[in-house]
């Protein structure tokens, strides 16, 4: 076969979408400046950049939600100054957002055709369930779905829901599917499935723009990487050049120290142990685990393996159905977070906005909340003291805010996470539990969170970090415990750290003998 014949259609070498010198100015900020890129059929483009680099602006321009201030968008050789939402849809541009726009209470087929249901029954406008079902089956097949069109959405995992979103995109004959942080909510094994779907799209000649903070996945999947920083295109990497270090360097404009090989602090005494603890997620599986002073213990595993439930049980917000925790020689069975807090066990929860902070309270009010009696004169809140603590924590953690009276909800994700940390660090932690501490946080803030975790360990705090991000687990932990279906499948020491080992244990396999001395 000649190279020409290898193409299914000769035109496919031509980019179907080209952006030239796109510029978008908001009052006070240049969100995007002289940005150019092109997308060819079947191309997978990785789009990376820190939060605020201009990715969302670019997406909004492609979606027709906002118009660029300058520049040309050329689709199929037709240049335009801007797109409308209808233009974007007609051009076959489809979005799969980080927050999936699906209905929990409907089934798969209804979700895919919501608003565009095939109708029957004339003026009664009934949904033609049969036809809808027939239309859905080939779509599900294309995304490799292992669930039925009748499955209630509520019964699907996050990865399966993303497949539904992608099938929805395919149902409108998408030519370009834009995935916005699709893997940040997915556990490791499900990520693999999503990457397979992307490969299938590519094989069909559908282009993909893949936005992710997880650079490893970009390395695996992208044909080309486009790096944005401060609204400008700072580099394009072709297939052969894509590697982690290059991307990170372009994204932040400097070398980032990925915390590897932590200082050889001899791990201290056991701070807290789980002894045969059973949680609601897997009541048949008792979990035993030791947390040591001065050590960051990474807790890896698939979503649903019981990691979050263990953390919540330690913090006293979920009941335990057997076993106990051991703390300072006592048996400890907390039934309320206040009991754990009193013992210096603090949790930075997975759901930052739902459980970590109160978005409508000020920063100062959030920081004092768990320790309010200490910020009170008899029954009355002492606002002066509250502000004092908050100001101190704002300096210590470098929270970026004009004032500690600012509403917490107006901060960026990274700064909200710092508020969660600030409230705990204002008290004296003995055991700090972090559940997915850097999810949805940009790289700069991530590095700060890692540094804080390390500082905590250095002063003797026992740190437990639940993470689904492989780089993070391996880069930050001193030891890694891997959970599989409710039990601790294995504990890895530094010399055994590798992506394969973590993944093998997470999916229930065993790892071979130590390969390295």
């Amino acid at each position, binding site marked *: 076969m000649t190279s020409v014949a290898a193409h299914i259609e000769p035109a496919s070498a031509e980019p179907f979408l080209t952006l030239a010198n796109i510029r978008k100015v908001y*009052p006070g900020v240049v969100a995007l400046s002289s940005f150019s890129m092109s997308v060819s059929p079947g191309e997978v483009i990785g789009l990376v950049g820190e939060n605020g680099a201009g990715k969302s602006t670019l997406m909004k321009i492609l979606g027709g939600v906002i118009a660029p201030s300058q520049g040309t968008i050329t689709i199929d050789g037709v240049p335009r100054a801007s797109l409308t939402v209808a233009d974007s849809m007609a051009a076959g541009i489809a979005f799969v957002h980080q927050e999936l726009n699906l209905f929990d209470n409907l089934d798969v087929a209804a979700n895919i055709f919501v608003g565009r249901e095939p109708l029957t029954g004339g003026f009664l406008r009934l949904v033609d369930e049969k036809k809808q079902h027939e239309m859905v089956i080939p779509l599900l097949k294309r995304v490799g779905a292992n669930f039925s069109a009748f499955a209630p959405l509520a019964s699907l995992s996050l990865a399966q829901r993303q497949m539904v979103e992608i099938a929805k995109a395919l149902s409108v004959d998408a030519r370009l599917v834009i995935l916005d942080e699709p893997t940040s909510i997915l556990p490791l094994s499900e990520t693999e499935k999503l990457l397979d779907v992307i490969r299938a799209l590519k094989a069909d000649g559908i282009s993909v723009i893949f936005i992710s903070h997880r650079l490893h996945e970009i390395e695996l999947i992208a044909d080309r990487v486009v790096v944005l920083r401060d609204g400008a295109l700072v580099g394009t990497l072709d297939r052969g050049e894509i590697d982690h270090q290059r991307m990170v360097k372009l994204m932040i404009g400097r070398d980032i120290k990925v915390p590897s090989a932590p200082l050889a602090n001899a791990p201290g005494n056991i701070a807290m142990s789980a002894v045969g603890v059973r949680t609601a997620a897997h009541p048949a599986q008792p979990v035993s685990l030791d947390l040591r002073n001065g050590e960051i213990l990474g807790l890896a595993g698939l979503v649903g393996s019981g990691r979050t439930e263990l953390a919540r049980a330690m913090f006293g917000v979920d009941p335990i159905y057997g076993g106990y925790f051991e703390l300072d020689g006592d048996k400890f069975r907390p039934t309320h977070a206040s009991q754990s807090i009193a013992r210096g066990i603090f949790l930075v929860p997975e759901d930052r906005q739902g459980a970590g902070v109160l978005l409508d309270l000020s920063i100062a009010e959030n920081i004092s909340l768990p320790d309010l009696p200490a910020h009170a004169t008899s029954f009355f809140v002492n606002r002066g003291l509250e502000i004092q603590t908050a100001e101190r924590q704002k300096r210590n953690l470098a929270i970026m805010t004009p004032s500690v009276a600012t509403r917490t909800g107006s901060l960026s994700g990274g700064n909200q996470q710092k508020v969660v940390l600030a409230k705990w660090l204002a008290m004296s932690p003995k055991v700090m539990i972090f559940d997915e501490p850097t999810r949805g946080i940009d790289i700069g803030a991530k590095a700060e969170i890692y540094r804080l975790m390390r500082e905590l360990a250095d002063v003797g705090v026992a740190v437990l970090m639940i993470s689904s991000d492989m780089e993070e687990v391996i880069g930050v932990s001193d030891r890694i415990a891997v959970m599989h279906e409710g039990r601790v499948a294995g504990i890895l020491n530094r010399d055994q750290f590798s992506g394969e080992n973590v993944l093998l244990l997470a999916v229930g396999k065993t790892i071979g003998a130590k390969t390295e001395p």
Partner: protein
Amino acid sequence: MTKKDLGLLILILAVGAVVTMINPRFILPINIANTANLVGMFGLSALGQSIVILTGGIELSVGSVIALIGVLFVDFIATQNIPWPVAAALMLVLAIMLGLTHGLLITKFKLPPFIVTLCGLLIYRGIARFYTRDATAGFAFGQNFPKLEFITAGRSFGVPNSFIGLIIAAAIMWIVVHRSVFGRYLYAAGKNEEAARFSGIKTDQVIIAAYVICQVLTMLSAIYFAMYTRSISPASHGNFYELYAIAAAVLGGFSLRGGEGSIIGALLGVVLLQELQNLVNLLGIPSSLNFAVVGGVILLGVLGDQQWGSFRERRRIEDAARGREPKQASAE
């Protein structure tokens, strides 16, 4: 005082001015004092309701509790000859028990507040009617309780004591809600119970306490109403009073989702509501239209507030766009 409270105050004064122009009897001391008395009595139950609404809950049994406590209290002092302070103490115990029961069912048994208190509404009304066999509870001719009557239905310096009672209760509740540790917990638990729990707040206790406070204030209001009407027919006494309380809280800026509202707002809400009732009487509007007028005004008020909010938000964004765009262009 927030901007919203100030707006409400201006509205109250404006409505008052208009009514006065049409019917000057509005500002006669006798009318003001009568209205103040009603504000005092309805205000106590509205304060209680506000605390529950602050937690994101609702208390629908208020009217029935006013009837139940009314018949019990009057029967105790008038028929059973129990000294009134003892009877009042017994009513306090009953109110605390009712609040505890509601709170426990809502927090520990995880029943929705609407259902729990709706059942309360039906149950207490039934008990009140059964207790008197549907007869009217009242005082015998010539039966007098001078001290109690002075505290409840009397006046000091021309001001109804019920109104003074409300002001005292409101001052205490203001401190509790806006200055105390418990008040902060109320707002936190009402805004986001999960996050409050994750900060170690015993949200169940906070919510139970809110229902207890509500019942205690409702009990006070029940005694005031009982001594004001002096005869209580258990089938109708206090009917819809929970809705007056909820309406006052909503007018006063409370969000039924919880976590929003102020004591001043609740007070102003009660005043506005009673002013409207008074307006219906003074302007010669048929009293059968009473509910329709009040309902219509609340609807318009909430609608206006909503529209004004989105208008200001739009204007703020447009101003920002207009005011800063040229500056940006020159800076480049």
